[in-house]
């Protein structure tokens, strides 16, 4: 028996709204996006493979993924801590700090980029303290981690916060009344409940960080093999009119992005299953 595509409904407008959604989605997103894959299909396998595995490109993957991973890990730890503090404690300025969490979403990446560079450059507020100690932050991989930590900051906080707020207190009370210390209660009762949301938030931060461009290019210094992220390499290839090379690297990035999207979807399913 054929399953029906759409359930019966008395509301009007399905044809119009669904049709327009598919039309606009195809026009703006699907057809343009497929251009990358079709263009890449014109390359021979050898061309593709030598481009995406050349030493300079490999160095950029290591930097992009390494820095994004470290930034996501920093955000996992501090994002959880910030979410905990915002949900569980009352203190002066709580509302204020809660509302500025989303700043990295609202602030243009180029603004964040030049502001962070000004702070961490050798003459900057923090950079001038670290420079005599021999620690280079701006124009070094550490600077890239700082920029990516900034852009990824809201993800963990905002995914953990609602889960933490909905957590029922009964299990914690039971654990406490049975003599568990606060640390034991956190480790055995709370942490397993919020772990899926911490992982989802970190995965979102990681996915965002891998593709990030604006906030990184100012602070990174963009030295080939050393501080050159993968998105910057695409821009460099385009500026040299090497469209084939840019397309090949873009395909690698797109495949990784789609894989991340899949992982995030699975993680989110895990979160909702745990919640109800």
């Amino acid at each position, binding site marked *: 028996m054929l*399953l029906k*595509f759409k*359930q019966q*409904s008395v*509301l009007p407008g399905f044809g119009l*709204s*669904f049709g*327009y*959604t598919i039309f*606009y*989605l195809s026009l*703006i*997103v699907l057809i*343009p*996006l497929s*251009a*990358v894959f079709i263009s890449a299909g014109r390359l021979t396998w050898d061309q593709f493979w030598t481009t995406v595995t050349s030493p300079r490109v490999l160095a950029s993957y290591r930097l992009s993924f390494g820095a994004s991973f470290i930034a996501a890990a920093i955000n996992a730890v*501090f994002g959880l*801590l*910030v979410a905990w*503090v915002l949900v569980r*404690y*009352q203190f002066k*300025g709580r509302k204020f*700090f809660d509302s*500025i*969490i989303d*700043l990295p*979403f*609202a*602030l*243009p*990446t*180029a*603004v*964040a980029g*030049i*502001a*962070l560079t*000004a*702070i961490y450059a050798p003459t*900057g507020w923090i950079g001038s303290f670290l420079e005599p100690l021999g620690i280079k932050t701006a124009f070094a991989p550490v600077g890239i981690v700082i920029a990516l*930590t900034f852009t990824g*900051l809201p993800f963990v906080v905002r995914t953990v916060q609602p889960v933490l707020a909905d957590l029922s*207190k009964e299990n914690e*009370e039971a654990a*406490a009344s049975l003599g568990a210390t606060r640390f034991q209660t956190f480790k055995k009762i709370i942490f397993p409940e919020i772990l899926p949301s911490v992982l989802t938030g970190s995965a979102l931060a990681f996915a965002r960080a891998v*593709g*990030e*461009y*604006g906030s990184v290019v*100012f602070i990174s210094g963009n030295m080939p093999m050393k501080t050159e992220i993968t*998105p910057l390499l*695409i*821009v460099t290839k385009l500026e040299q009119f090497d*469209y084939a090379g840019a397309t090949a690297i873009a395909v690698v*990035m*797109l495949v990784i*992005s789609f894989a991340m999207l899949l992982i995030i*979807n699975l993680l989110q399913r895990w979160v909702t299953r745990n919640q109800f």
Partner: protein
Amino acid sequence: MKITKYYKHAKTSGQSRLAKWILVTIAILFLGLFLLLPLIAVFTEALRNGIRAYVASFTTPDTISAIRLTLITTAIAVPLNLVFGVAAAWAIAKFDFRGKGILITLIDLPFAVSPVVSGLIFILLFGLHGWFGPWLTEHNIKIVFAIPGIVLATTFITFPFIARELIPLMQSQGTEEEQAALVLGAGGWRTFFRITLPNIKWGLLYGVILCSARAIGEFGAVSVVSGHIRGQTNTLPLHIEILYNEYDFVGAFSVASLLTMFAFVTLLIKSIVEWKFSKDLQEYSNDSNRS
């Protein structure tokens, strides 16, 4: 051990007060370092040479043309995505059909794509050596390295924002009110404007603000398609980059401060909308609009 110490307002023992103090201090230091310090840096650098130099940086012709281009781009991209967002949310939230999950994932795609790749796809389509390149050259139409390319890339980047805000909101509201209106004889459009629109207005406003914030601030995608022609194809973020690379730091940070103030407005409206939500939507048990 007192079990009450896990409650927010409960009296706390000395030990847990110490734990609270340590955790709150770490959180504030972290947020101060990563969020407040960059904000302070923007305004300090912008005002480094005094208020006169600050104001002067907004009156250069290049800055004015960058502001104009940014506003034009936003004024085209946001309404396009607004119409789409409402249509998509209506189809997805009010009807049941197969493949809904896939459709939602496809709508999210631009979030997953690196801004640089988002710009690249339009170069591949409309660039000189792109698919439509020869045809466009023949007909003397410029898309890439001109305003249409900037608008297209911005529309792509901001594509999901309004739909993403509206879908969970409209799903949580169900279809009973619309059904009642239809039974009472209202037409489809009338039902939408009199029932649905008032119910979603705050979510819609927040979606539009988020979409505008991103449209104004987009850097990577626009940077790839713009061609960086001064006074012609520079949006505000690209203008900041040029000023910065020319060591005009006061100019760069002055323009940056303008965008920062817009970011404040975005956050303020978000707070107001969330407050309105919790007031308006108390009858709807489920506040699924945290994103």
